[in-house]
């Protein structure tokens, strides 16, 4: 009962996103109209939707990753500032999976899970298992070398006659890592955290040539990412006029803050600085959304909308001092692993909010299910996730989700979140344990490992059993930060250029 009182005290504007989502789920049944946030009142299933075939053989798929888009900054996930009108509109008419947890908190491991359907420990594009291969440029190894047996989503679709094109901002989804595996064409601009400003035109060019075929497109950009600055600079549209401009929003500042956090355990920023960085982030998100809107307009002009399944998501979130750090990769708190996921089906008119907790590992099985495409015989047992199509039919698909991060020379963490909101994080190099009751403490501020020792014990066993079951016995290895970096600049003894 006290729980309810606590929740009632939170105004809808400041409401935490998990609480927001819980309420939204309740509201979709009857009292949706009382909700004041735009874009969500219509999450009511109607008769038309029930008739959706949910089998789309030979339809197109456009898979969009808005890199580093934190769930809490998305309107259709409860953000109050209107920065994602295009995504929100798609969410409104599609399936809005509001509790999607990414398998990792940074790009390289997280994104490859979409394309292989296995955990990062398994596809091995993590710094722990990557092989340092000097003098190759910037990149240490790739999927073919690390996990030659894995079949990618693009490969499966290509085998089924799809044209496959990837248009990205490089860096974490660089072709050098093997992200190009299975793509007819894979664009990644060398040495950059590139934006959709570059990848969208390339994508549209490719579409013009391939629009008459069935195709699978991966569209990606770092527009929201700390290392990307809008062409022409910021206009500071959301920054308070009175801000003393201690920061300007540059990539260098952002990088310095990240490194400060890693070095000292926390960054020294003032409340107004955090507000500033969130304002900068909102500007980036709004610009990204606008770019994507233009892409959709072009796309519609080609007459492809009704033939296409859209998947909109992000590989991970990012942190603005929620846990005293900036940037991402180094922890597994919700601001880093809770991501948006919207799937729209051809001709879908009204959407549905699905609050079941699911994982980014479910995306590949869902796409294959919708397209009615099967994994090749050899790779049949590869997929670890489950199709979300049953959720679209109204069935519960809520599950425990597992995440992991092996971040640079800094940390190795693993986490599990239960369906009913217990989150356990284990840090391998120092055996640190964290337990959060997300229902009571959605911001993960109060570690209750001492208050709930039995739950912590059982979740720890569960976490280790999970990784053992996928062939990674965490107890059997040494976990010492700095063993195997992903970029050569992060290798031990590397000389800074």
């Amino acid at each position, binding site marked *: 009962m006290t729980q309810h009182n606590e929740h009632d005290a939170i105004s809808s504007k400041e409401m935490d996103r998990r609480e927001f989502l819980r309420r939204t789920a309740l509201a979709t049944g009857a009292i949706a109209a009382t909700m004041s946030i735009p874009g969500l009142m219509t999450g009511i299933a109607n008769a038309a939707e029930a008739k959706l075939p949910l089998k789309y053989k030979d339809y197109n798929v456009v898979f969009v990753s808005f890199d580093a888009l934190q769930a809490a900054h998305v309107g259709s996930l409860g953000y109050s500032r209107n920065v994602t009108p295009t995504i929100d509109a798609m969410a409104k008419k599609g399936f809005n999976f509001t509790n999607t947890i990414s398998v990792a908190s940074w790009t390289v491991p997280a994104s490859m899970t979409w394309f292989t359907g296995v955990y990062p420990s398994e596809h091995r594009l993590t710094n722990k298992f990557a092989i340092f291969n000097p003098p190759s440029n910037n990149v240490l190894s790739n999927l073919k070398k690390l996990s030659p047996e894995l079949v990618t989503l693009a490969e499966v679709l290509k085998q089924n006659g799809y044209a496959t094109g990837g248009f990205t901002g490089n860096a974490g989804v660089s072709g050098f890592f093997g992200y190009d595996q299975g793509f007819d064409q894979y664009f990644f601009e060398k040495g950059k955290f590139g934006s959709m400003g570059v990848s969208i035109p390339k994508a549209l060019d490719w579409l013009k040539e391939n629009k008459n075929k069935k195709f699978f497109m991966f569209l990606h950009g770092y527009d929201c990412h700390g290392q990307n600055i809008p062409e022409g600079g910021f206009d500071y549209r959301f920054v308070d006029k009175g801000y003393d401009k201690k920061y300007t929003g540059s990539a260098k500042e952002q990088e310095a803050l990240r490194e400060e956090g890693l070095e000292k355990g926390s960054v020294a920023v003032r409340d107004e600085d955090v507000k500033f960085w969130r304002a900068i982030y909102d500007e980036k998100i709004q610009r990204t959304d606008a770019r994507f809107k233009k892409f959709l307009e072009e796309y519609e002009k080609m007459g492809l909308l009704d033939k296409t399944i859209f998947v909109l998501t992000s590989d991970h979130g990012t942190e603005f001092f929620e846990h005293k750090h900036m940037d991402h990769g180094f922890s597994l708190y919700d601001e880093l692993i809770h991501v948006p996921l919207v799937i729209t089906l051809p001709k879908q008119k009204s959407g549905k909010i699905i609050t079941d907790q699911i994982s980014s590992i479910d995306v590949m099985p869902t796409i294959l299910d919708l397209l009615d495409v099967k994994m090749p015989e050899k790779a049949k047992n590869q997929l670890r996730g489950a199709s979300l199509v049953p959720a679209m039919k109204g069935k519960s698909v809520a599950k*425990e989700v597992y995440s992991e991060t092996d971040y640079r020379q800094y940390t190795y963490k693993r986490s599990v979140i*239960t*369906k*009913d909101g*217990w989150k356990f994080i284990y840090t391998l190099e120092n055996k640190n344990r964290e337990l959060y009751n997300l229902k009571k403490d959605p911001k993960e501020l109060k570690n209750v490992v001492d*208050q*709930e*020792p*039995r*739950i912590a*014990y*059982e979740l*720890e*066993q*569960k976490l*280790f*059993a999970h990784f*053992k079951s996928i062939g990674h016995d*965490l*107890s*059997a290895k*040494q976990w010492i930060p700095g063993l195997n970096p992903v970029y050569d600049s992060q290798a031990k003894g590397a000389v800074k250029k």
Partner: protein
Amino acid sequence: MTRLAGRGFGRYLKAIPAAMFMLVIHWSDGGCSAAPAAPAAERNEYTNVILVSLDILRPDHLGAYGYPKETSPQIDRLAKQSVLFENAIAHSYLTPVAHMSVITGQYPRNHGMVSFEVSKNQVSQRTLPEILKLYGYQTAAVVSSPEFFMRYDTESGKIVNPKDIFSHAFDYYGRTVPDATGSVRVNPTAALDWLKANKDRKFFLWIETGMLHPPYSQTVPMPYKTQFDPPGYTPFYEQFPIRLGRENADRGVPTEVLFHVYRGNYYLDFQPIHKLTEKDVSFINGRYDAGVYYTDTFIGDLLNTLDALKLSGKTLVIFHSIHGESLGEHGYFFHHDVFDTEVKTALTMRFPDNSQAGKRISRQVQGIDILPTILDYLQIPINHESQGASLMPLIKGDEAGFKGSEYAFIDRLPWWEYVLGGWHLEHQSEREAQYTPLEIAKMKDYRNLLNKTILGEYPPECIAVRTNKWKLILREKSNLLENISWWNFISGKKFPVDSIELFDLDKDPMEQKNVAKDHPKVVEQLKAKLLEWDASIKKNMTTPAVKGQPLIIPYP
């Protein structure tokens, strides 16, 4: 706090019955397959656990393990009601090291209890009592061996910073009361009182006794003390007193005497002064057996108390020895090596419903398997840090379902010479042992030698691997061992130390004949296994942090 946690978790489970089902089947290898509709109460909800640990107990001195003398009628009774493991192996010869493996399920280098002078923070905290406490168990211990009450001294020599390691997670941690000889190594009868007072609670009780520790039979009362003495026998050492200060009482076979016996000779001033007769050896063994017999009477009292309190039917009783004792088979009396005399242990498990009673299992099992077995039986998720495997499949006859290794790895950890230098020599005077001026002078040299060679840091690579058939011992620094051997010191000779020993345990269970040269392939294969294990856990090796601080063991 525990109760709150329990309630919280209860709510958590009720909210999602399906998840609870998952917990049971997914987390525990031997988990039950209860129907999800009405899951039966888990065993940990109603089963007590008693762990009876006997230090220095050699299984082959028990009737249940084939000893011809009448030393253990009560333990034999318990064994008949239990599953008995004929080949149970401890991971070290040293009490705290071996026992920490039992209550954590980890190899010594992993649990961190690698010698006497480690600090609390260096040792794994996730012990059996800690886990059982999470599941609502009252945890109690009545303990006799001083090793389990270690304290660290400061420069002042006063105990100002008690750091019990083994008392962690016990609601009650009781020790035995010293007897007239001043030793706490007596029967832990307070455990029976605790049982009477707590019979209605769900409990884990650890009962430990160090009665068998040298001096053999020190605390055994008459007439039990002399019951196995050869008739009319006078101990050989009384003709050659080395402990001039002591009153003339029978305090068992003195440790200092045992420390001066090697390969059949009694040494004083580095000269053999007496060749041990068959009677002498029989006397020493008899005094050891007197300890077994008197301990056995306590086991009888324990079993009777459990019956009288109607606890037998709801209590899992694990009986084991922490490690064994060499009784002259390798030239010495004491425990300081990785021979079977020292590392082979007794192990029996009596289940509340007496299921499998009388079963004997010959497959080799290990100290690290005990914790997983208890947790598995109680349907508690097994701690992932545990390196052993549940014995429940073996117990149920499912040999293939047993996930344990056929290889037992044993560490001579720490080197006994390290313990000697850091503790034994230091405290000779406290035990009123008085040596001759020549021995005292040379003892200083010996201590300097230890200081120079091994007290600064741990010497590596004195390790062994054992299967049901073979034992391979690797002593990489055999020359060093030869130089610093206490026995070579006390005898003034250079008995050689082999760097590789292989024993055929079928033909030679007492490990008398090194057959390494006859079986090069076996050596090669076992050595590879052993070195692979060694390398896999090497990085976890904890080195003792407390240096130069003398250790005080109360109630020596």
